[in-house]
């Protein structure tokens, strides 16, 4: 086709490795729909940034597509109900995360009716998208809770708004899907190419890109063909080119794909936007299509269920929040064979803490391996400085150097070697002849650096607060001293006056002639009496001490006793 041949030249990216793809396990079947689970567990934080604020209460009836939590802050995304039913709880539950920690989730008991809330599409397929304003589309994308479904999970609307403001001339669509086993993007393109293409056109319109390059690995000929046929239905004004790139892991890394397609390198610690490029995933494009043409928020995604211990490997359209156990049962897992259950691919995925965790926006693949299917690295041996890791690094980093410094916890030096450019693709660990878990070290170092930064910020705030407090106490002390000085002055003046007075008063023999001015000694006596009365009143009226239970009273007595003893000890010690 002429469309694809216009770009004859491809650029290689450094490093990378060849992997057995194992994709045919799951990419031959059509997309099946997951059975509706009895309970959906929907985490409020399924994206980068602040978790959504829950807007529903326990006991509320919700419809499919109804909003459960609004975006909180500028970088956040709303969360929607992926089935109709009743909210039974909003509490912490295990989420699919390498930490095995819990996070706030909304539990919905489904009623089975799958009743949708009102979906208002912005436009129908017959209409031209030029009728829509960018802001309208963006609003729709933001409200639909769409995030980068390639794995970044960055709210798409935020990314698009930034790209709109900056000068972006190229839109790169990532359809490479380079990790072994994963085929969710592949089948999406095979089965629903028009959704992908229409979604891409929407993105292209918002960012105002002159050209769009779809990068697809050459091990997906069916998907490539499907996209090509779909696009030939549109006129060539679309400026969308579909380009097959050589299959080489990690060609699907954002920066690697950009380099292969355009020959441009994203600057260190920069974004593709810095060189006028924006990159989106095909699944994100399809989700945007759903939001704009059908008005449906992101409530489901395609998940690859594959691996040697799965009887029927396949791709499933799964409502978000479905427990992973349910979809594994549906695909049929052979429990006797299971070795590992990994979310994501074998290179960048992680072992699930439990299969009772829900499917989230990030879940692209559940890989259930049988014994011997995946390499279990033997204990690490000492580094032999062969530098194979540097040769394989697609970011041209020096993993060996970073390893030494990460191991010694020299966080400054690790950063000098640009650890934050590491995309954690796992090539270095894969090629290491000593089986050193290099990526683990880099992840460890990165989180340590972030933690240090948080600690530093926290201690800076504490320091400011402490200094402010000291200053305040200092001021209070000064004010008190000043007041005391003034009082003293006044007293001295009065005294001086009083010293003269007795002379005058001595003349008037009877003091009681002046009843308005009572004797100062009497005044003091009165004041003391008043204070005493007040104190007695206070003591009898001590707050929180009425209606004490016996146990509380006992405790208080004990404490008083202890305090008395302590003060005695102190006295005797001195």
């Amino acid at each position, binding site marked *: 086709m002429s469309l694809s041949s216009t770009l004859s030249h491809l650029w290689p990216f450094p490093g990378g490795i060849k992997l057995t793809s194992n994709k045919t396990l799951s990419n031959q079947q059509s997309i099946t729909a997951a059975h509706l689970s009895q309970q959906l567990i929907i985490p409020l934080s399924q994206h980068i940034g602040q978790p959504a604020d829950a807007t529903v209460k326990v006991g509320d009836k919700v419809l499919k597509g109804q909003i459960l939590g609004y975006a909180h802050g500028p970088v956040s995304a709303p969360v929607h109900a992926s089935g109709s039913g009743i909210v039974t709880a909003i509490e912490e539950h295990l*989420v699919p995360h390498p930490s095995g*920690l819990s996070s706030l989730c909304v539990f919905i008991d489904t009623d089975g009716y799958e009743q949708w809330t009102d979906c208002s599409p912005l436009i129908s397929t017959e209409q031209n998208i030029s009728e829509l304003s960018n802001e309208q589309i963006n609003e729709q994308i933001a409200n639909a809770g769409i995030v980068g479904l390639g794995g970044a999970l960055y709210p798409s609307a935020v990314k698009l708004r930034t790209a709109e403001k900056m000068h972006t001339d190229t839109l790169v669509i990532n359809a490479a899907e380079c990790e072994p086993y994963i085929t969710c993007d592949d089948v999406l393109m095979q089965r629903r190419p028009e959704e992908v293409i229409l979604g891409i056109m929407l993105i292209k319109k918002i960012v105002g890109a002159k050209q769009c390059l779809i990068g697809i690995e050459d091990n997906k000929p069916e998907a490539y063909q499907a996209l090509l046929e779909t696009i030939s239905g549109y006129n060539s004004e679309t400026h969308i080119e579909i380009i097959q790139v050589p299959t080489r892991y990690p060609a699907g890394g954002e920066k690697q794909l950009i380099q292969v397609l355009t020959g441009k390198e994203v600057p260190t610690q920069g974004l593709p936007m810095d060189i006028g490029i924006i990159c989106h995933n095909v699944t994100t494009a399809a989700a945007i299509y759903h939001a704009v043409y059908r008005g449906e928020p992101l409530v489901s995604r395609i998940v690859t269920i594959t691996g040697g211990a799965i009887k029927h490997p396949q791709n499933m359209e799964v409502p978000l929040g479905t427990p992973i156990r349910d979809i594994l049962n549906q695909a049929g897992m052979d429990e006797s064979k*299971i070795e590992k259950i990994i979310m994501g691919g074998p290179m960048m995925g992680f072992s699930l803490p439990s299969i009772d965790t829900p499917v989230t926006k990030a879940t692209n693949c559940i890989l259930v391996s049988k014994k011997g299917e995946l390499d279990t690295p033997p*204990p690490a041996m000492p580094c032999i400085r062969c530098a194979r890791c540097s040769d394989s690094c697609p970011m041209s980093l020096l993993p060996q150097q970073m390893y030494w410094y990460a191991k010694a916890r020299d966080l400054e030096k690790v950063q000098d070697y640009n650890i934050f450019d590491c995309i954690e693709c796992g090539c270095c660990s894969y090629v290491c002849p000593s089986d050193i878990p290099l990526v*683990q070290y880099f992840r460890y170092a*990165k989180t340590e650096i972030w*933690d240090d930064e948080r600690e530093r910020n926290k201690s800076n705030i504490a320091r400011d607060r402490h200094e402010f407090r000291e200053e305040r106490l200092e001021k209070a002390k000064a004010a008190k001293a000043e007041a005391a000085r003034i009082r003293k002055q006044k007293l001295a003046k009065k005294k001086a006056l009083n010293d003269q007075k007795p002379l005058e008063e001595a003349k008037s023999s009877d003091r009681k002639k002046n009843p308005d001015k009572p004797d100062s000694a009497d005044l003091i006596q009165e004041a003391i009496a008043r204070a005493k009365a007040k104190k007695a009143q206070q003591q009898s009226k001590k707050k929180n*001490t009425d209606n004490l239970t016996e146990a509380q009273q006992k405790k208080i007595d004990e404490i008083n006793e202890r305090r008395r003893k302590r003060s005695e000890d102190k006295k005797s010690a001195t």
Partner: protein
Amino acid sequence: MLSGILAFIALASFFGLALGLAAVVFKVESSPVIDQIDALLPQTQCGQCSFAGCRPYAEAIATGDAPINLCPPGGENLIQSLADLLDVEVLPLGEEEDAFQGPIVAVIIEETCIGCTLCIQACPVDAILGAAKQMHTVIESECTGCELCVAPCPVDCIEMIPVKQTLKSWRWPEPLYNANNKEADTIFTTLDQVLAENVRP
């Protein structure tokens, strides 16, 4: 003989004068070292180092009056970075070794609080809110976990609880995968073992 003595006296007084002049020219006002040390300290102001706060401790380190291992909240990492900064040997954390077990914050048990304001006065970072005879509460995000409020409380209603780990504050564990360490490879298989147990109902 005499010429030698005289020559030395002359030489010595010349150098003495020159150095005296240099001392005036190169007078040092204040030392930024203290600031740099202070920036590393965790600022809990807890006084566990026996100094009245983080800044006084930093001053003591700078003058060499205090060793670098007196700060339990800073832990090993602080000692490491101080040792790097000052190029001295890393010392093991002094005093009770199990003194510090991760970050903690103070929590006031509201039913017991009598509103005496003693803890408010004790807090070095103003992280406790309340007024006389009103129930007090700790602002969790500002609390440094220094425990200075625990002792003054007359009704023992302040508890120190560990800070809950969230997905954001979670850190990858350091890989212990090492040829010399036979037990170490368990860390990566534990998850899988837990999993294997979970999968079978």
